[in-house]
């Protein structure tokens, strides 16, 4: 059965970087950051493309984010998405997951969707919430932390990861939302011709009006949300640091391992 698949992709600051807090304390300093596709979303995109390749259908990649996310959307086209849409929500940090999920849900309503995929978590905000919220808002069936998806007559069979290496297997009806876990597949590299082609493909842009809103502030929310402040985490740790040159560090470490009785001989 051909599937219309929407995959939600988020662009995040590379989390390997070190971060500084902006002067107003409400966000990180963003001037010198480089951005990438969120880790789990690489697996969600690959899963979407594989399902399409197997069952037929279309993959639409969807993001809510500023102009810079166009690069990520082109990457998605090069890796097999058929169409890409950007909700032109320019708030760089977008800390309120409820608001972002409502925007994504509103956009998904306007797109054909038998299946919606998200990543299991965004590595910048670590909410693990967007997929479940979208399912609840749209009234769709859902399953989370999915490591395996098979299309079965009229529905899906999915395996969901639990703690300690266990998996729970469900059969489920469509339409559905799944949050895809790291390691669910092996994401492909984009072939060069596809990258060239993606550079010329159009990116659909959704303004507030396209989602029936006067502005992005007009999203109706059952609460008010605010960031009180960001800070470097208070170091509760007490790691004793071994300093010096690598040779000195190695000497101290070897000595420590001997003292504690861990070095053989």
């Amino acid at each position: 059965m051909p599937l219309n698949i929407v995959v939600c992709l988020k662009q995040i600051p590379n989390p390997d970087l070190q971060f500084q807090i902006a002067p107003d304390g409400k966000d990180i300093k963003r001037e010198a950051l480089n951005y990438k596709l969120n880790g789990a979303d690489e697996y969600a995109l690959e899963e979407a493309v594989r399902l399409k390749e197997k069952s037929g259908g279309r993959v639409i990649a969807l993001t809510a984010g500023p102009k810079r996310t166009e690069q990520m959307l082109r990457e998605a086209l090069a890796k097999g998405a058929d169409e890409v849409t950007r909700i032109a929500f320019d708030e760089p940090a977008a800390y309120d997951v409820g608001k972002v999920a409502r925007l994504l849900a509103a956009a998904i309503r306007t797109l054909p969707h038998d299946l919606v995929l998200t990543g299991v978590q965004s590595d910048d905000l670590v909410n693990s919430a967007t997929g479940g919220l979208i399912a609840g808002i749209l009234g769709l069936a859902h399953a989370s932390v999915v490591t395996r998806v098979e299309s079965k007559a009229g529905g899906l069979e999915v395996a969901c990861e639990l703690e300690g290496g266990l998996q729970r297997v469900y059969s489920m009806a469509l339409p559905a939302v799944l949050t895809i876990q790291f390691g669910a597949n092996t994401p492909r590299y984009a072939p060069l011709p596809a990258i060239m082609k993606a550079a010329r493909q159009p990116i659909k842009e959704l303004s507030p009006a396209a989602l029936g809103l006067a502005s992005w502030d007009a999203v109706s929310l059952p609460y008010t949300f605010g960031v009180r402040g960001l800070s470097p985490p208070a170091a509760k740790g007490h790691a004793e640091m071994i300093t010096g040159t690598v040779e000195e560090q190695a000497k101290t470490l070897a000595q420590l391992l001997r003292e504690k009785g861990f070095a053989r001989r």
Partner: protein
Amino acid sequence: MIAIGRELASRSGGPVRVALFGEKVRALADALAGHGVEVLLAEDPALAEYTPDAYGQAAQSIVESTRPRLILVAHTSQGYDLAPALAGTMDLPLVTNCLALRFDGERIMATRRLLNEKVQAEVEIASSRPIVATVRPGAAKAAGPAPGGIITSTTVRIDGSKVRTRFLSIERPQVQDIDIAGADIIVSAGRGIQKKENLPLIEEFAKALGGVVGASRPLTDMDWLPKTRQVGQSGKTVRPKLYVACGISGAMQHVAGMKDASLIIAINTDPSAPIFEVAHVGIVADVLKLLPATLKELKS
């Protein structure tokens, strides 16, 4: 969670109730009531196994009948499934993965960690509706026993025709390998070792200490090592005498599996890596340079 609930309730003055869903879970209800709380016990054959729809309906039914100010859910694989969907279905505010929660007048303040634990955020939510919050396991010390607990049998409405997800089975890992959970010494490799070709270095180091090689999840996802070597929430929980973390950032899901090791040594190039928060000994260094140098020292 009971500890956090009791602490918040002692400040706001309301009761703490624990909702327990399942079938034949009376013994668990007794154990929970031993913590001095009211247990709302909802037993139903449709709740024998977790399914998103049946548990979602049960949770919605309890929220409607009790109208709590705050709904706490554990930030676990099952919690990420239940809590956001409940918030979406009932149009409730949601804040997830909290380290701490407190009331501030009409508002709820939540402490969260962002960007590989490198940034802490305080966020506030105000609403006239019940707020859904997930709390990170280990965010508080477990609650001790307390008197006054009771069990209240509760019926929840579950419409079987609206259960779209059917439980089929639980799969357990089958691979044959050494059991790292039994090892006294574990040297674990993370994405910081850069290439699969660097694994023999980790193996050599583990061997010099009489230990075994463990790994963070990305390495087992990429099949550099079998899944059985993965330490963390979705892998093994280990309590060795020595745990050496080589190029591991210290994400909460990894730390959950190794924080109780007697001695933790962390090697990482990034001085702000959160692994240094749980480590006893930290070394800011390139693990690919430090380990060969240390091996040389150990041999001399």
